[in-house]
Structure formats: structure tokens, C-alpha cells
């Protein structure tokens, strides 16, 4: 039975978009040194949302110098005072959360249900959590008086623009560092609104600098000799380039990179819950999630039952207007990403896997991809090996727990994994054997500021979140 839904759009009038935005350096919005600008486009409508200054090498230099200058007094502030700034930021984010949620959905294309219920609450929670650490660093297990590193150069992706900003900025400031952050070129707006949050909070100038721009600005930031710490979330390919750039320097680095997580369903799993977990694992945020459960490993004996239920569930997913409160799957973030997903899905078919997607009407403007699954996938297929970063699930099967472990670990990535079974001892044994930094058992895609996040192997190194997340920003 198909349900009809009337449109239930969230009003975009809570967001007051200016026609153009500058770089945020030393507490001021400013043009790029060479005057270059780029456009930020809404991926669900292809409407230009605003024109944004594009940072270049000279701007990176200016921002790093501002952050360096601010570091002296910021790091000398009593931790309790630094903490209070972060508490202020957390509160202002909470106050402005609807505005920021709508803005994020406009600029990124993700459903308002996610920005409103997941991204923004987590952003505020991250600042709240690390605010409390600022005057307790000597109790964090990193020695009696751990020192900050200096200037943190941070480069973040477009999939969770404001949340990734929070993951980067909150621990950096709590530990006493100052920040130069480059948001992704397709989603610069929420970071620029955050600059305004910093101004409202009275944050001293230069402590947070925001440089919208492209990869060249990110590369210049990482390579800048005034940067003491590099934090990056993004692709494994760029992560490796960063690791090469910082080789032989004193820069401390944390990298959160790609993934190809196995979501493992055993024959005794509660099927309905598992199906919800599979759907959440791969279709949350259009599959633009580094820890997405993009490989479903289902035990052979329940394969048909699970796939039937999964297809029924997928047929009810609503794809469309990100600002509609009923929308489950929003727009693909950019035409480039859509092309990548399309190419990999085509490779899946060409290599012999069977493609299935529910009947699903896609909007005519914007960038869209229907929720898709592939069965008959082998470990050799590209769709089983490469990160698709889209709403595409590859289904493989297994017979024994040992085979599930072997297939799950047969990847250069190691970010996350899922286990679905009612047997406690099996959960613990599987969790022990999976080479992944986060293991969700009978749940998936859960995040919390107290919970360390990060990968094994080529998914990167270092952890963000929790007490562990402080280490990357302290000289220890």
C-alpha cells in the first residue's frame, strides 16, 4: 500500500542569505587577495545561493598569521575562560539551530529531518562537550600540564559541513589552539554563518579563521610552515597526499578518510531491525558518509528473507525536496559526485552484478540518485572494493562467521562495521576480529561527542571525539 503525503516544507525564511560572502580572517569578513569568487549552488534546485570569496595562497598566509598572533593570548587564557567561550558558542548554535539546519539543507542537499535532528544537535553537543574539557586538560591522561600545539590547519568535507567543523574546531579551541579552517567548495555557507556565531560569542579575533576555497587552498594550508597541526576529513587519496606533504616536518596530523564498511547480518538477527539498520547504514545522508554500511554481508540462509524485506522498505523511501519534512533521501551534493556514483553503478552492472532500485520519481532539476542495491556482488567487483559515497548498497553473502570476518576485513579501509545477531558472545567475538575503528552491533551510524571516531589502516589515523579526541590537539 502506498501512502500519499502532502508536501510539508520547512520554511526557508529563517535563513537570511546575503548575495555574497567574504573570507573570515582575523575577525573580519574580507575579499580574497586576488578578488576571486565562486558560487555556492543548491544541489536540489541548481539555484545559486550566494557568491563566496575564494581563498588563495596569499589568503592562507594572512589567515595563518592571524591565527598565530591570536595563539599567544588564546593559549594563555585560563582554561575556564576558553571553556566559557565554547559554552557560548554551543548555546548560540542551539538558539540558531533551525536557521543553520535550513541553511545546511539548502547548501548541502541533505534532508531537513537529518540536519534538524542529527547534524545540529550534534554540533551543539560537540561544543558543549569540549567546552567542559578546556579547564580539565590536566585530568585527561596526557600529563600534568599538557600544552596546545599552536595553529591548527583544518580541511573538512561537504557531507556534514557544520558537524565536521564542530569536530575540528571544538577540541582545537578547548586545548588552546587557534584555527584556520577550509570548508569544502560545494558547502561553504554554514562555516561562514558559524563565523558570525563566533562574532556573537565575542570570540577574540583570529582564534577562528574560515577560508572558503578549493583544493589548492587546502594544499597551501597543509603545507604552510606556520601550521603546527593538520586535521583532515575527506578522501583517502587526498589523505595520502597530506601525509606526504607533512613528512619530515614537526606537524601533527589526524586523518579521517574513506571507508567501505561491512554491515553483517546473521541468520538469527531480528530481521525488521536489521533492515532498518541496513537502510540507515547506506541511505542516511544519501550515502555520503565515510562510515556508511556500503557492503551488506548477509548470511546465505536468510538472504531471501532479508532482501525481500529490504526491497519493501526501500520502496517506501521518499526522495526529493530536502526541505520537505517527509523526505528521507535528499539531493546528491554535486554533479561531480553524481557522475562518480553513476560511473561506479554502471561498473557494477558491467561486471555482472544485478542492479535493483524501487520505482522512484526524481525531481527534474538538481542532482539525484535513486536508492539502489546490487546483488550477486563478488569481492572482486569495483562496487565491493571502492567507496561509492552514494546511496548504493552492494550485497554479498557468507556462510560462517569466519567467512564474514574475512570478507569484512578484505579491504584497505577500516573505519566502521555493523553486526546484527541476537547472540551476545558472537557480537563480542565479531567485534574483536573486525578491523574497524567503530563497530555498531544491532545499531548503525550512531555518533556522540563522547565516543571516539576514526579508522584503522587506510581509513586514516587519530581519533576524533571523546577524551581521545584531545590528543590530536595537545603536544603529547
Amino acid at each position, binding site marked *: 500500500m502506498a501512502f500519499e503525503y502532502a508536501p510539508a516544507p520547512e520554511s526557508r525564511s529563517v535563513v537570511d542569505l546575503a548575495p555574497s560572502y567574504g573570507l573570515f580572517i582575523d575577525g573580519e569578513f574580507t575579499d580574497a587577495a586576488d578578488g576571486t569568487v565562486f558560487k555556492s549552488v543548491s544541489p536540489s534546485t541548481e539555484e545559486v545561493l550566494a557568491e563566496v570569496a575564494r581563498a588563495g595562497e596569499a589568503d592562507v598566509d594572512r589567515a595563518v598569521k592571524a591565527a598565530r598572533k591570536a595563539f599567544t593570548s588564546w593559549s594563555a587564557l585560563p582554561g575556564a575562560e576558553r571553556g566559557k567561550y565554547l559554552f557560548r558558542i554551543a548555546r548560540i548554535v542551539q538558539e540558531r539551530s533551525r536557521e543553520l539546519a535550513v541553511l545546511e539543507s539548502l547548501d548541502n542537499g541533505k534532508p531537513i529531518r537529518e540536519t534538524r535532528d542529527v547534524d545540529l544537535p550534534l554540533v551543539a553537543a560537540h561544543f558543549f562537550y569540549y567546552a567542559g574539557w578546556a579547564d580539565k586538560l590536566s585530568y585527561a591522561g596526557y600529563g600534568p600540564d599538557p600544552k596546545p600545539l599552536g595553529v591548527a590547519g583544518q580541511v573538512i568535507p561537504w557531507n556534514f559541513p557544520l558537524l565536521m567543523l564542530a569536530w575540528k574546531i571544538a577540541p582545537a579551541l578547548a586545548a588552546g589552539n587557534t584555527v584556520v579552517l577550509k570548508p569544502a567548495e560545494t558547502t561553504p555557507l554554514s562555516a561562514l554563518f558559524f563565523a558570525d556565531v563566533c562574532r556573537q560569542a565575542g570570540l577574540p579575533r583570529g582564534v577562528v579563521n574560515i577560508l572558503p576555497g578549493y583544493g589548492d587552498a587546502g594544499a597551501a594550508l597543509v603545507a604552510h610552515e606556520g601550521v603546527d597541526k593538520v586535521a583532515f576529513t575527506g578522501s583517502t587519496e587526498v589523505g595520502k597526499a597530506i601525509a606526504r606533504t607533512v*613528512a619530515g616536518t614537526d606537524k601533527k596530523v589526524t586523518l579521517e578518510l574513506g571507508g567501505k564498511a561491512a554491515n553483517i547480518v546473521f541468520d538469527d538477527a531480528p530481521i525488521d531491525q536489521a533492515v532498518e539498520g541496513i537502510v540507515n547504514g547506506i541511505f542516511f545522508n544519501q550515502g555520503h558518509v565515510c562510515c556508511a554500511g556500503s557492503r551488506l554481508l548477509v548470511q546465505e540462509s536468510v538472504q531471501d528473507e532479508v532482501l525481500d524485506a529490504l526491497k519493501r522498505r526501500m520502496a517506501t523511501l521518499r526522495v526529493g525536496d530536502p526541505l520537505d519534512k517527509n523526505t528521507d533521501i535528499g539531493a546528491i551534493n554535486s554533479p561531480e559526485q553524481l557522475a562518480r556514483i553513476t560511473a561506479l553503478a554502471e561498473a557494477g552492472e558491467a561486471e555482472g552484478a544485478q542492479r535493483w532500485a524501487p520505482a522512484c520519481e526524481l525531481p527534474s532539476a538538481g542532482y539525484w540518485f535513486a536508492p539502489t542495491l546490487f546483488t550477486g556482488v563478488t569481492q572482486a567487483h569495483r562496487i565491493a572494493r571502492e567507496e561509492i559515497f552514494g546511496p548504493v548498497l552492494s550485497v554479498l553473502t557468507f556462510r560462517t562467521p569466519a567467512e564474514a570476518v574475512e570478507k569484512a576485513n578484505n579491504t584497505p579501509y577500516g573505519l566502521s562495521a555493523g553486526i546484527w545477531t541476537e547472540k551476545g558472545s558472537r557480537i563480542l567475538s565479531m567485534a574483536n576480529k573486525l578491523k574497524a575503528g567503530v563497530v555498531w552491533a544491532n545499531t548503525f551510524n550512531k555518533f*556522540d561527542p563522547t565516543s571516539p571516531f576514526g579508522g584503522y589502516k587506510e581509513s586514516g589515523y587519530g581519533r576524533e571525539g571523546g577524551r581521545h579526541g584531545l590528543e590530536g590537539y595537545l603536544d603529547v
Partner: protein
Amino acid sequence: MSEQSRLSVFKTYKLYVGGKFPRSESGRVYEVTDSKGGSWLANAPQASRKDARDAVVAARKAFGGWSGATAYNRGQVLYRVAEMLEGRREQFVREVAEAEGLSKSKAGAAVDAAVDRWVWYAGWTDKIAQVVGGANPVAGPYFNLSTPEPTGVVAVLAPQDSSLLGLVSVLAPVIATGSTAVVVASEAAPLPALSFGEVLATSDVPGGVVNILSGRTAELATPLASHQDVNALDLTGASVDLARTLEEAAADNLKRVRRPAPEDWSTDPGTSRLTAWLETKTVWHPIGV
């Protein structure tokens, strides 16, 4: 009674790989001399790239068993290493004195410190998880636990200047937490390290958990830094220039890298060499009835 002095028996120094004592597959050796006078001490095997790769294979093979052993068991084994080293104290005092040009008493102090370092790390095996891991109070009905896990195969360039104490100080923390090691001994002073393989072989350390190579540091480090089945790289014994090149190569599969830094092997080692080779795994499970 005859006054004629007995002719001593020289030892052929060999590599320690996979629990066995092979010569270099290349058949090469190099002369090791006393650090003071430059007089000949022994011919050490000059291991090749192939020896380095064989050592990685041995270390990978041993990883499952060693990382799966209980922390208590690893502690017992590390303590056994201390016992065996203590028992051969005299031999190591002589070898360290010759290798580093130290007086008997200074070499003795270094060997004693090396024994004590094994005891220190033996005690850490079943405590580090409690110190660096723990429950996380997430805002929801979930059990959430972070635990440290060994990273895998660690390639270690042992310090050039401290032939035994330095070697022990970089090696023990790798295996204490369940990783396995391929160690490149001090290039100029490899003999104590090679003899130390004999201690390991009699200490209940499973074959392959520690593999010791001697030879040219740069020649051996290069294939190790770019090896796709090595998870981490300790550059302690690398020069600044070599360290940069190796760190660049290590980026290819995102090895965890510890850069060289000034070291004082006589001070409290802290926990940073333990945590350098640990991954944090966080497990979630819903709470409900």
C-alpha cells in the same frame, strides 16, 4: 698443568626471523668493529630487501596468535624475557661495552636498565587498556566502549647509539600490546641485538613475533617503509634525511609513523611508545529489554 691458553670459540652472528636463525639469503656479511679501537669483532649478516620481506611475512603470520593472546599471557612472556636477559648479563655487558665503547660498569648499568625495561613493559600489558580505554557516556540508551587494539606489523629502526637498552626500549612496547615487529638493529653496533634474538628464542616469545635484521639501515628501511603489509613504522634510528624519505614512502598505505626525536633511554619511558602502536576500537550496542 699446561699454561697454554685455550683458543676461544667465535660465534657466527645470524639474523633472527620467524623464530629461526638464518644467514642473509644474499650471503653477504659486513665487518663489525669495536667502537673505540676499530678492531674487528665479528662479521654480521648484511640482510637484503628479500630478508626484510621474509621478516614481514613472519611477523604477519605471528600477529594473529600474539594479538589474540591474553594480556596476562603477554605479560608473563615479557617477564620471561627479563629473566632470560638477566641470566646472560655477563655476555651482554661484554658485548655492549665493546659495541658502544663503554666501561664495564656503564655497560652493566645499560644491561640492568634493559632488564628492568622488560619488567616495566611486562607489567603494562594488562593495564594499558584500562588507562587508555573505557566506557563512553553517550547521550542515549547505548553501551559504548573504547578499547585499544594492536595495529599489526610494526617496522622498527632501532636507535643507532644504544645497542641494547635502546633496542629494548623501542621493541618491548611494540610487542607488549600485541603487535609484531621487524627490527633493524643499529648498523654499526648490531651484535647485542643479534645476541638478543637468542634471548627471545628461549623466552616463550612465539617465533615471528620479533624479527631482527642487521645490515645497512637505509637499504632495509626502504622496502619496509613502502611494504603494503606493514602497518606502522618507528623511525627512531633514522637520520633526518632518511626519516623524511621513509615517511613519504609510508604515506602510500598510511602507516602510523613515529618520527625520530632526541631520546634519553635512562628516563621513565612513559606510555607514548605503547599508545603509538594502538588503534582505538569503539563498540556500540543498544540497551533495552
